[in-house]
């Protein structure tokens, strides 16, 4: 692509991104804000592709276009309705007193100052010689990492600690969600047209996620992208009105949720016992170990994201999660006893 048209492309893309972000934040009602945010996610996948980050673009496509939009819309669906078109809360707040108007100005100025300082620092960094010692370190050691995709090498080998902790963060988040009570009520069973679509989409998405997991060793892809794609399959099935979307019963589900962290830790500790550093794979086994850990991590990530979309524990026997908070409190007191969920509809 010649430099002029590339630059024109950059400017137009960034203008649309900033415009959408602004419109989404400033829009008078929450529903519009969410729709604009979904459009923003689509443009971001383009921007990441443009910045030569296809690994990131894959994850953004699966999450930005599928999961997070569906998640926000589901949250919107059950918000307490304040039917007052035009009367935004921000405006109401602003009108209440002079102090709040001043707070607004101060916060705006501080945010602008932060952006200014950050931009100034970045400009200085970019003006200097490129700092690529890390890049050189990665490419020098890529040969012993067991994979040839540098991003996968960083995630699963060179900075395995980070990824292990990230999986632990995901697990913590989902445990928090589960502790808050039963999930959202599901969706009505889909009509024939959407049902037919869901029936072909779900297997295709599962296939694509397996492909991404496999290809991640030498090309863009890997556990995170594959997990997000697999979770998208679950979201599609859930939207089509399947209640349990083929998730295993409670006990097995917990096993799947913790598989990523568990296997990662097990590998690290057994390496430690064998006299190697924690997560310091022997180069000969590195490729195989990474694939095993990634497979487990993919399943955990997918289960985590699907449960995050459902927003809580699965309903037992297809009883729609009743809304009154009393049932929710009961549910929390009984949460300690693992219950078997009704296998209302499994698979597709």
């Amino acid at each position: 692509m010649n430099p002029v048209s590339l630059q024109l492309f950059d400017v137009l893309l960034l203008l649309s991104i900033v415009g959408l972000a602004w419109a989404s934040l400033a829009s008078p009602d929450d529903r519009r804000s969410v729709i604009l945010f979904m459009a923003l996610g689509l443009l971001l996948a383009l921007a990441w592709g443009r910045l030569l980050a296809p690994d990131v673009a894959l994850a953004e496509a699966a999450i930005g276009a599928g999961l997070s939009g569906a998640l926000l819309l589901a949250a919107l669906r059950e918000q307490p309705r304040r039917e007052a078109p035009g009367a935004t809360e921000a405006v109401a707040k602003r009108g209440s007193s002079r102090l709040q108007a001043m707070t607004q100005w101060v916060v705006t100025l501080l945010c602008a100052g932060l952006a200014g300082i950050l931009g100034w620092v970045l400009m200085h960094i970019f003006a200097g010689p490129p700092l690529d010692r890390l890049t050189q370190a990665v490419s020098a050691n890529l040969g012993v990492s067991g994979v040839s995709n540098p991003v996968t090498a960083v995630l699963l080998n060179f900075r395995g600690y980070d990824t292990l902790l990230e999986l632990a963060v995901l697990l913590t988040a989902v445990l928090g969600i589960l502790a808050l009570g039963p999930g959202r009520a599901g969706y009505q069973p889909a009509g024939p047209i959407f049902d037919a679509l869901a029936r072909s989409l779900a297997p295709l998405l599962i296939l694509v996620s397996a492909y991404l997991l496999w290809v991640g060793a030498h090309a863009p892809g890997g556990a995170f992208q594959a997990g997000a794609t697999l979770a998208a399959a679950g979201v599609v099935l859930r939207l089509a009105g399947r209640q349990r979307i083929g998730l295993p019963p409670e006990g097995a589900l917990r096993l799947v949720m913790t598989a990523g962290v568990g296997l990662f830790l097990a590998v690290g500790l057994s390496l430690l016992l064998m006299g190697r550093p924690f997560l310091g794979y022997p180069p000969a086994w590195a490729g195989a170990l990474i694939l095993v850990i990634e497979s487990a991590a993919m399943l955990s990530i997918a289960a985590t994201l699907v449960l995050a979309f459902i927003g809580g524990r699965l309903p037992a026997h297809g009883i729609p999660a009743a809304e009154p908070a009393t049932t929710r409190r009961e549910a929390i007191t009984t949460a300690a006893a693992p219950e078997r969920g009704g296998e209302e509809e499994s698979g597709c």
Partner: protein
Amino acid sequence: MIDVVSSLLIVAGVGFYLAGSIGLLRLPELYARLHALTKADNLGLGLLTAGLMLQSPDLLYALKLLLIWLAVLAASATSAHLIARHARRRETRP
């Protein structure tokens, strides 16, 4: 020769995209816009993928292009149907 054909297909595809989005912008009401949009989705992307398929380096790449087109076709039909039904329901029970 192949280059000429694929260039023509790509240009035509972009033309349909533009026609679709101009329609989406200019047409007066939702159902007419829905009609304009399906043109962009189906024909624009169809011609574009056909043009790119002639240039594809291997079979897997060409198959992915075909799959992309089919997926968008199915998605656009489904979502047009769902959005139209949704809008109609809103109209009948305000």
